[in-house]
């Protein structure tokens, strides 16, 4: 039987430490929607999404009310649109029609984001992949809720540097096309390496071709809970006790996610896929991964020791979480977005955190350089260089890495950018002024690393 202190602890986590289930994401396969006409394909897509996910918002709200835990986002991810549209899209604007259809479906369902306007081009681009990528600026400018991602590399295939070069240009163009909204389009566009098929978190969520027809994936959160426990029980203790405490806390957080995922799966009549064990911060005070790093003993994230502290945190979250869930997947780890974490923003403003240090941090956590605003004058080649560096880290370390960078049109280093809501706000960060243009101009791909040959 549950005792009083356990009952109060659960409610304190929810009410005071921002424990929530960050997202219930329904993955939907659209492979059976493809036809030879764009309009018919769009009709099929709209019909399938609005049929399968019609109750997702109500179900999420009902579960949240009954268990007394907020379920912040209800979302949908789809088969990479480049595959769905390959049989009918002949021009970038054909793909934009699909993006607008997805946006309409998201609005009809009442969900805030739909992910999967994506292409997986880790070894090479099909004509459809390239058309979709070239359509991204227009798609991001003319839709509100569609998220786009492009996977440019993997440990097994190496890195498609042609796609990396193209994505540098596409990120710049997307920033330009949405300059009236602080280049917001780039906040919904992520470039990945080793992208998982079952990620429930935006902007990188898509429903991979290895998945079934429909699936429910859940992303948990709770940096505030970890921070509270460390603040109250772990000041000055050794690493053994520190790690044990994080592990136990991660277990409790993940169990809530597992419960919600099973309930959602049962009520929606869709199989349960995975729990994504993530510490996902929000701009709210007290809901910060940076604050945990500070609690471990850093003055600011970015100080020497940050990478070690983050490695420790990330590993303990996984160790605690794996035991709590029957299936774990997605990105699973601590997120370190800059604009969505007040502690990270403070660290940048204090001069403690640079892009180079963030890059080092991405070697030991999920996912990558996330929600980083840079000057609008940053060249496409430099952005490609940053993407290539992150992809190389992912490729060599057999992990997911990503870049969600916003070259804010018209803004300079030190100026502020406001994205609003969960996307937060960010100071524009300094980028290396040295050129990588000649390297990015080379054609072809970087071969897969030696340790990928396991057969």
């Amino acid at each position, binding site marked *: 039987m*549950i005792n009083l202190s*356990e*009952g109060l602890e*659960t*409610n304190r986590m929810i009410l005071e430490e921002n424990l929530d289930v960050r997202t219930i994401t329904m993955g939907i396969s659209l492979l059976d929607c493809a036809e030879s006409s764009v309009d018919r394909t769009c009709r099929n897509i709209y019909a399938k999404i609005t049929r399968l996910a019609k109750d997702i918002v109500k179900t999420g709200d009902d579960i949240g009310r009954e*268990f*007394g*835990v907020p379920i912040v986002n209800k979302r949908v991810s789809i088969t990479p649109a480049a595959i769905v549209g390959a049989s009918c899209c002949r021009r970038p604007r054909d793909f934009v029609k699909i993006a607008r259809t997805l946006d309409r479906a998201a609005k009809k369902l009442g969900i805030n984001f739909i992910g999967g306007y994506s292409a997986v081009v880790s070894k090479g681009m099909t004509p459809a992949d390239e058309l979709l990528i070239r359509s991204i600026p227009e798609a991001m400018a003319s839709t509100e809720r569609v998220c786009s991602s492009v996977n440019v590399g993997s440990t097994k295939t190496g890195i498609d540097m042609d796609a990396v070069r193209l994505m540098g240009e596409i990120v710049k163009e997307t920033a330009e096309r949405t300059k009236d909204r602080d280049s917001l389009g780039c906040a919904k566009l992520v470039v990945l390496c080793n992208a998982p098929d079952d990620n429930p978190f935006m902007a990188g969520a898509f429903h991979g071709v290895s998945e079934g027809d429909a699936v429910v994936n859940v992303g948990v959160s709770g940096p505030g809970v970890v921070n509270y426990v460390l603040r109250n029980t772990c000041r000055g203790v050794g690493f053994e006790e520190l790690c044990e405490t994080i592990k136990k806390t991660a277990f409790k957080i993940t169990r*809530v996610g597992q*419960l919600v995922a099973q309930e959602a799966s049962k009520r929606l009549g869709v199989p349960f896929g995975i729990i994504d064990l993530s510490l996902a911060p929000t701009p709210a005070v007290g809901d910060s991964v940076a604050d945990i790093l500070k609690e471990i003993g850093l003055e600011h994230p970015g100080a020497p020791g940050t990478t070690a502290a983050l490695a420790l945190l990330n590993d303990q979250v996984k160790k605690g979480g794996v035991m709590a869930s029957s299936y774990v997947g997605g990105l699973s780890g601590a997120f370190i977005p800059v604009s969505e974490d007040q502690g990270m923003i403070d660290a940048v403003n204090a001069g403690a955190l640079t892009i180079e240090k963030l890059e080092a941090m991405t070697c030991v956590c999920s996912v990558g350089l996330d929600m980083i605003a840079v000057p609008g004058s940053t060249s496409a080649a430099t952005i490609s260089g940053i993407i290539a560096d992150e992809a190389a880290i992912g490729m060599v370390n057999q992990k997911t890495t990503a870049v969600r960078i916003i070259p804010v049109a018209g803004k300079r280093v030190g100026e502020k950018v406001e994205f609003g809501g969960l996307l937060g706000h960010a100071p524009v960060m300094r980028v290396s002024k040295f050129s990588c243009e000649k390297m990015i101009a080379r054609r072809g791909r970087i071969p897969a690393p030696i340790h990928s040959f396991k057969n």
Partner: protein
Amino acid sequence: MWYNIRVMKKVIITVVGRDTVGILAKTCTYLARNNINILDISQTVVGGYFNMMMIVDGSKCRKGFDRVGAELAELGNGIGLRIRCQKSEIFEKMHRV
């Protein structure tokens, strides 16, 4: 009534706030009026703050889970307390392997 049985079978009610006379009486009166049976109850007062947790069986209650939750929250607001009504699984899953 199957809906009530499904969602009201084992529910945990927590009451937190500044201690005052009659908190238990008011909460229990409401539960009795609505045919909700108390299975277990524990409470403590620390530093003038009242903490209580009840495990109740609401399968014979004629009102739905949402309505009971809302009415209890309202009852709490009237006397400066936070009363929450949650299905027991969230506590069991979190604290038991």
